[in-house]
């Protein structure tokens, strides 16, 4: 959708992942040689049925999972950083600053309120203490998290509130690359609109996004391209209409 020549920010090649469960002596295949390219400023959607490997793909990129084979290359100017072989320490630093991941469920440290949680995220992205507090407040407001909840322990928030706090932490002073795992799945229509506005706004802030959605309407609205995943592999790629129109009925079946 962009006119200028597209430059990749993330290149995934031949990524495979299986889990060996030693206790029951079984192996479960999760990803089968997945390759994809995310361009700078692009919003790429991942679609597919539950268990297709979408979340595993995001986690392998973020290295919550260690892939068995393949490469995940982050393009930083002319530098290419292979995230699968990057040292743990460098990876931990990169995650804080340049590379965000909003998981499906909020994983908040115990006994922390939304404001502190989002402020901590802003601090990790390099804002100073004062700026981080302001940015966190702004981010929470944009997502409609009421001020009376800001000091309340995250674990007592409702599912929708938690999801918005999670998204606020992910998008406050946003990193260059953001992975979103079903960021609006638990939201009511009004809050969903707020969240989508924040997600759409990322494009104007030069944030590249790779996101999982289960709603065709949302994909149409926010994503420039969509990847269809089936059984751990990518089976179709293109604009929403291309993927639908190319006879990949699977997408239609999933999100009918």
């Amino acid at each position, binding site marked *: 959708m962009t006119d200028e020549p597209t430059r990749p920010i993330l290149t995934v090649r031949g990524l495979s992942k299986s889990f060996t469960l*030693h*206790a029951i002596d079984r192996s479960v295949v999760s990803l089968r040689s997945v390759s994809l390219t995310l361009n700078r400023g692009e919003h790429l959607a991942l679609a597919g049925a539950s268990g297709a490997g979408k979340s595993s793909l995001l986690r392998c990129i973020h*290295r*919550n999972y*260690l892939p068995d084979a393949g490469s995940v290359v982050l393009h930083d100017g002319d530098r290419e950083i292979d995230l699968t072989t990057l040292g*743990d*320490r460098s990876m931990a630093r990169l995650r804080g600053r340049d590379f965000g991941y909003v998981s499906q469920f909020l994983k908040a440290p115990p006994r922390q309120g939304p404001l502190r949680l989002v402020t901590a995220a802003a601090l990790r992205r390099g804002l100073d203490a004062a700026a981080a507090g302001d940015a966190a407040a702004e981010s929470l407001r944009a997502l409609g998290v009421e001020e009376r909840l800001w000091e309340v322990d995250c674990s007592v928030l409702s599912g929708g509130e938690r999801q918005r706090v999670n998204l606020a932490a992910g998008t406050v002073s946003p990193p260059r690359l953001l992975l979103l795992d079903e960021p609006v799945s638990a939201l009511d229509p009004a809050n969903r609109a707020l969240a989508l506005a924040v997600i759409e706004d990322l494009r104007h802030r030069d944030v590249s996004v790779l996101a999982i959605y289960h709603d065709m309407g949302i994909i149409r609205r926010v994503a420039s391209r969509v990847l269809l995943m089936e059984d751990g592999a990518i089976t179709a790629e293109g604009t929403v209409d291309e993927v639908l129109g190319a006879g990949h009925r699977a997408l239609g079946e999933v999100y009918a």
Partner: protein
Amino acid sequence: MTLQSQAGQPAALAALLPADPHEGRPVVMDEQAKREVRRGVLAGVCVPGYIVPFGSREMPVARGWGSGGLQVTLAIGGPEDSVKVIDQGDEEGVNAVNLRRLIVGTLGSRATADTADASIVQSRHRVPEEYLGEDQVLVLQVPQSEPLRQVEKSVYECKRRHAEGDYAKMWVALYERLALTGVMGTGTGHPVMVHGRYLMAPSPIPRWDIPRLHRSDHLTILCHGRDKKVYAVPPHTAVDPLTFDDVPFEVEHIEGVACAKCGTAESFMVETRTGEFICSDVQFCLKVRAGLADLDRHDRLVPRHYYPDPARRVRSFVPAVGTRRVPGPAGITAPGEDWSLKVEDLGKVYPGSRGSSEVVAAREVSFDVAPAEALGVIGESGSGKSTVMRCIIGDELGATGAVRIGAVEEGRANLLELSPPARRRLRTHVLSVVHQDPALGLDLGVSAGGNIADALIAAGWRSYHDIRRRAAELLDRVEVPLGRMDDVVGQFSGGMRQRVQIAKALATDPQVLLLDEPTTGLDASVAAGVLDLLRELLAERELAVVVVSHDFSVIDALTDRAVVMRQGRIVEAGLTDQLFADPHHPYTQQLVAAARS
């Protein structure tokens, strides 16, 4: 050998016996015993203030009567000496009278009451008021030779502290006294530093007398017979009372009080039953009255610079604590490297002995930690994680491999090759530990403030007010109420103790912090509070942190990276969340599964 009657004695033995047992002087000490004492005294003179053990003999006096002083006087004295014996400044005490008779009768020397006339002055609890010169020796009877005894029960530890010049505990005792009473009043026997090296118990002389030992012209010998210890202050040796830079040492002096008998206002005085004050040194008092005292000379000995000055005293205060948060220093890494702490191929084997086989507690353990980074070490008990921790701290000898710290010789030095004292010194500045059991990191008999003072004093802090302010800041930061700053830690709850221990560990802004099961053993809610505190503290500082725990939630809350240990080896390493989400090793999978249940 059987005793035989006088008549039946063999000729050889009979020749050794004096013809008349009542003739000649009694032999209280044989020449061997005297030589032993003199050897001890010489060693003591050579190393001023150092406590020399010697072969003390039984003396024909009751315990506490000064058998130590008696042995020294008998060993160094002879017929040509004139001996003065005093007890608390008085010649006529029962103790003094009897010792004098014993000494004079044994040595054949002359007894004298005049300090100026005596070549040996044996004294209990006083230094004479009058000047003592180069040809005079002061012998002090000592009831407790070990100055550290009141703060350290272990004889071994006392000796180690003397060897390393580690007197922080004594300073803490002074700090405690100041914090509780506002005055330095240690009564008699205030601890002194001799020649800037050894801490010495000057025997229970009043503070008034301590300046008289400082760079004095006479030799002072102190001896504890029952303890078999002798030590000395040679002439012209510095003797400095232990005190904080900003809290002056004080001698006993009451402005406007004069001796009821001789009228002098500047001597050490005692109060009579009638409420009058008189000179403690009876002989000096008599001489003043007779106009025989050298008052000019005495005047030069008066410790006016130590007279109490209420304006300079410490007021009982709890420092105000602002919200100011002083950030710790920037982390120091080895040049060209990322890390502050590096462990390379660490190994530790407990050798087998009869009844137990060899145990490999750690093998090929390697990791490094950067500033502002926390590394977790997870494993069950017996996995070797505590051994690794102890090897880094220096509590475990005979480890192989290397432990390096960026702030120590730019990371070139292998800590495992340093001497135990050098490793202990690291813990005052560079490396701090928070133990599972607060009793290991704290002195439970000392106040919260005193425990932090301990760390600061060891690191060289000598200003009472600075120490107090810093301790208050730290305690405030770890949310210990300042009202409890001067309470003994032994009265604190477990969670509060742990907070104090954390404050102490951070007191000197170390580069590396080791947390050994920091919340284990605390109630769940208390542990949660401590965990939250630790998380905040780590975020504020650029510390390189190692967290050892069997508890996943602790590792998860505090660290970005972790290693999993089993049977002394690291079986898996990775990002903490990756280890939990995608454990590879069967053992890690077991641990994760167990943690989830």
